[in-house]
């Protein structure tokens, strides 16, 4: 039993990712989509929190959303970049899904 959490809000604006990180359980997966992908970057003010999260969770980021925003190269190296097919696979791999928005 473990959950895939999806987060679609920017951590610079909104508390959704912070709440997700507080309430996700060790071993859960967290997928950043839409404006949530801004939480998966290196060298930002949020990066220290991201790196703390990487100790407890597997972090994924939707690559098409990074590309649209021009930030593929800024993505944190330890966050796994996936496409929509990979998104579908994750929802099968994990036993439940929770959306944070």
């Amino acid at each position, binding site marked *: 039993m*473990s*959950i895939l959490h999806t987060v679609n809000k920017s951590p610079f604006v909104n508390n959704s990712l912070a709440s997700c990180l507080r309430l996700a*359980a060790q071993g859960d997966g967290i997928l950043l989509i839409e404006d949530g992908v801004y939480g998966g970057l290196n060298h930002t003010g949020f990066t220290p929190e991201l790196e703390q999260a990487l100790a407890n969770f597997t972090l994924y980021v939707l690559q098409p959303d990074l590309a649209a925003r021009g930030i593929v190269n800024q993505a944190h190296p330890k966050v796994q970049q996936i496409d929509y097919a990979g998104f579908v696979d994750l929802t099968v791999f994990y036993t*439940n*899904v929770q959306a*944070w*928005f």
Partner: protein
Amino acid sequence: MKKILFIQRRSPYGTGFAKEALDAILMASAFEQEISLVFTDDGVWQLKNQQDTKTLGIKNFSPTFKALELYEVKQIYVEQMALEQRGLQIEDLIIPVTVLATAELRQLIQQHDVILSF
């Protein structure tokens, strides 16, 4: 039978999510599944007592929470930290709830089959 969890994270009135989420909860209660409700983040404001929307000219839907018991929705949880951050105590809430520490809520979420968050 499935265990369904509703997670309420939005304040009332500012957006329409809280009201329409409550409609969904009442509907789900008719399906005789095991339903739990969690209020956290600004969602705890939904349960604040003394709501009075007369001047705004919009509907006060908070009394509907009192009907949840009639609908056999009895597992209602609030995250302690969310209350504390907002200066709220359980006496300030319109219905009795079970207060959970963050770690307990984290466990509770894992025990459900379907999670509907609003």
